């Protein structure tokens, strides 16, 4: 006679060491196997879209910092690109190169946290986390040198960047770029062939390519499934078409591929930064733009490849100093669409690993 079992619902509540923020999952289990999963969020909703309608275009920039606070430069970048597209403002070339350098450094820093936190979820007891944070510290020191802050930079302005780089920046950046590939090798030695990591992540949470496209996944989640789509190559913005770099693409779309894609992207970012440093022209870093900018009536959608995926801003202007509508297309929110389908059928420990590999930031999900 078969044993009667009953599914049990466990709440991975908003406070949990592994949910990357105040994220809640209501998971129904049959033994250890997941039968259903419902993500619940909104614990960090601050109403940024509504707030931005009351601020001028320049005042919104510090708010965009706080959307995805682990990749503030990318948020700034996307927003100022949108406003410049709307108002038809030209950006000097030196500013464009500086923006690319900052965005790529930010990508490395963000992937370091994503990977470190991912291995924390797997149980590696902070060791990869600490090593990766050591490198991230160096990047944050560089950012502090340029704009004075370590997490929410407010560095990009409409029409350029706010400051030119100081003279000790380039030598420090060169030191960092020269030793970064060595550190990435070290992470590979520690983790990439580790049998336990392979056993926990290979084949777990496979996202087929057609499903990823249908669910509007973007960023490393999409590329790990084998879809070679990166906005830096597909729809280049700023000066990305001046650089030579590759798009790492995974083969299977499992958790291991998502981690692997991020490590490879870090390598490619170092390549881009190196080329940008060599090609950096001299000149101005900021176009003169009126303090109360009034873009002409119209709307614009600008998107960039942020570390988490396609970050887009949709702005509607009615020729007043304040945006009429400010909408954020948050990659973390849309990447979460696939969470339920990925986790059903796997076990409790896998749900945590899959969530860690999708790499969400709740501030972006909830806005």
């Amino acid at each position: 006679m078969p044993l009667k079992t009953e599914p049990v619902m466990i709440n991975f509540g908003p406070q949990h060491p592994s949910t990357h923020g105040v994220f809640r999952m209501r998971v129904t289990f049959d033994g250890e196997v997941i039968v259903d999963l419902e993500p619940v969020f909104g614990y960090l909703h601050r109403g940024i879209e509504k707030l931005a309608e009351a601020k001028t275009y320049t005042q919104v920039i510090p708010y965009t910092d706080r959307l995805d606070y682990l990749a503030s430069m990318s948020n700034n970048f996307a927003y100022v690109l949108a406003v410049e597209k709307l108002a038809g403002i030209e950006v000097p070339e030196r500013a464009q190169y500086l923006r690319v350098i900052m965005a790529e450094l930010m990508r490395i820093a963000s992937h370091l946290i994503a990977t470190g936190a991912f291995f924390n979820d797997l149980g590696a007891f902070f060791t990869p986390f600490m090593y990766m944070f050591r490198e991230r510290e160096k990047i944050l020191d560089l950012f502090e040198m340029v704009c004075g802050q370590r997490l929410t930079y407010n560095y990009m302005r409409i029409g350029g960047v706010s400051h030119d780089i100081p003279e000790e920046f380039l030598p420090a950046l060169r030191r960092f770029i020269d030793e970064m590939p060595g550190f990435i090798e070290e992470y590979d030695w520690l983790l990439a062939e580790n049998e336990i990591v392979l056993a926990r992540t290979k084949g777990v949470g496979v996202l087929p390519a057609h499903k990823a496209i249908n669910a509007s996944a973007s960023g490393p989640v999409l590329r790990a499934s084998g879809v070679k789509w990166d906005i830096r190559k597909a729809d280049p913005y700023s000066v990305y078409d001046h650089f030579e770099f590759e798009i790492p693409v995974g083969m299977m779309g499992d958790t291991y591929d998502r981690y692997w894609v991020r490590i490879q992207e870090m390598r490619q970012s170092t390549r881009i930064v190196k080329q940008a440093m060599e090609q950096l022209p001299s000149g101005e870093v900021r176009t003169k733009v009126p303090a109360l900018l009034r873009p002409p009536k119209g709307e614009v959608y600008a998107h960039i490849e942020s570390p988490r995926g396609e970050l887009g801003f949709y702005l509607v202007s009615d020729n007043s100093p304040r945006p009429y509508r400010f909408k954020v297309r948050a990659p973390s929110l849309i990447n979460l669409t696939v969470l339920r389908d990925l986790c059903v059928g796997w076990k409790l420990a896998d749900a945590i690993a899959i969530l860690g590999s999708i790499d969400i930031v709740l501030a972006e999900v909830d806005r």
Partner: protein
Amino acid sequence: MNVLEQFHDWLIDYWPSWAAYLVPALVAFVVLSTFVLLVVMAFIYIERRGVGRFQVRLGPNRAGPFGILQPVADAVKVLTKEDIIPAAGDRWVHWLAPVVAFIPALAIFAVIPFEERAIFTDLNVGILYIIAISSLGAIGIFMAGWGSNNKYSLVSAMRTMAQMISYEIPLVLSLAGVLIITGSLSMVSIVEAQHVPFFLLQPLGFLIFFIAAAAEIQRSPFDLLEAESEIVAGYHIEYSGMKFALFYLAEYTHAFAICAIVATLFLGGWHGMLLPGALWFMIKVFLVFGLLFWVRSTLPRLRVDQLMGFAWKYLFPLALINMFITAIEAIIWPEFPWQLLIPNILIAALLIVLWSGFFRVAGERVSFQRYGRGIIKGLTVTFSHLFRRPITVQYPEQRLTPAPRFRGNMLVWDHDACIGCRACARACPVSIIDIETIRGDKRLIVEKLEVDFGRCLFCGLCVEACPVRALFMSRDYEQASYRREQLVVSKEQFIAAEKRPSAYFYPDLEAEMPPQTLLAPPKEKG
């Protein structure tokens, strides 16, 4: 004739026989328990410092010189915490669980030979006693998981039983080789039989025993019972205060016991040159413990079904084969000359490589074909970090210098230069600047200026908007107050404050700023 029996023979001349029997036992129990607990405290300290050094940071170093009193601080904290009992749980089960978990771990020490005669009692079934007693701890964990009335605890309790039962068998079978060589179950005679340490004669047995023992004491990579990132402390999620401390102590006492057993069975116990035997024993124990926390800081944890697959499909058959091979060797070469260690090591390596090829984890695609090479690479990386300088900053004794352009807290306001134009108030995204002006004879005079730094974003837009260089960001980053109202800075406080402006937006000030402390500073030439 061990120390206790000597004591008994001396006492029996003075006291009645029951006293001469009881008193040595009590004295030895007190001494042994104290010693065990002291060593456990040392273990806790060493682990935290050691894991810290593997992670390129210092461990705790504030409580006492070099942090030596950290376990004492932990004990005091835990003793003074409120004892919370879940209202809907099973009260007696909940209360008894820590005791049932701790006592068996302590009871193992009755047969651990610290030296040839420094042993509580040399049972002639020493190993059997150890194995029997140590499996009782699992019941305590299960009681904790059940009595807490918490789904996380229950999941953890179920996992515990699965894990403990699975790993008992490889644990016992790997000992079989040692027992065949020794011919006796008594701990003292096992040590005496080791003319060459058994980890050389029984490499496979040593590895399997080490792995199975790590699983028995729920240490990483098998610590999914208290997998902090998944089930948030597992079976001891509802425990606080001294009961939690008992679980913690039970874990470390059991770890000490396992290290002691490994040192006895495989590393030669108290044998060693020059130093007294007990000291060699403790050195070996600490070495094994170092191995344990080295592995802990490097490896992620296994999933529960992979864990059980590993035990049943990999360790168990290997342990059986090891036992057979040892038995065959015992028949052919009963006195086990040291030359046997070479073929033994070769056979062990061969078996590991071959068996890894067969091993598939729970139906998924990965196989352990790499026979542990990836794990060894990881271990070398962690080990190399022991020799690097930790990056910990001893704040507040050691303060780093921020960058010249640092956007610190508390604006610096130049009262004489300000013309009262309110550009900063208009530029602020969060509208925290409150200015009121009155007309003076030549220009506007600022009468009231209030800035609420509790809501400041430190974005610097106010500094950029000021047309006359009256506003600067500051260099300080420490700001705290007990009341939110104190964070609102008024005009008088601005004028009276010590002005430490930063060079944000004013590059001419950068030259006189102290250089920023970098984590990767330029190397000095030469």
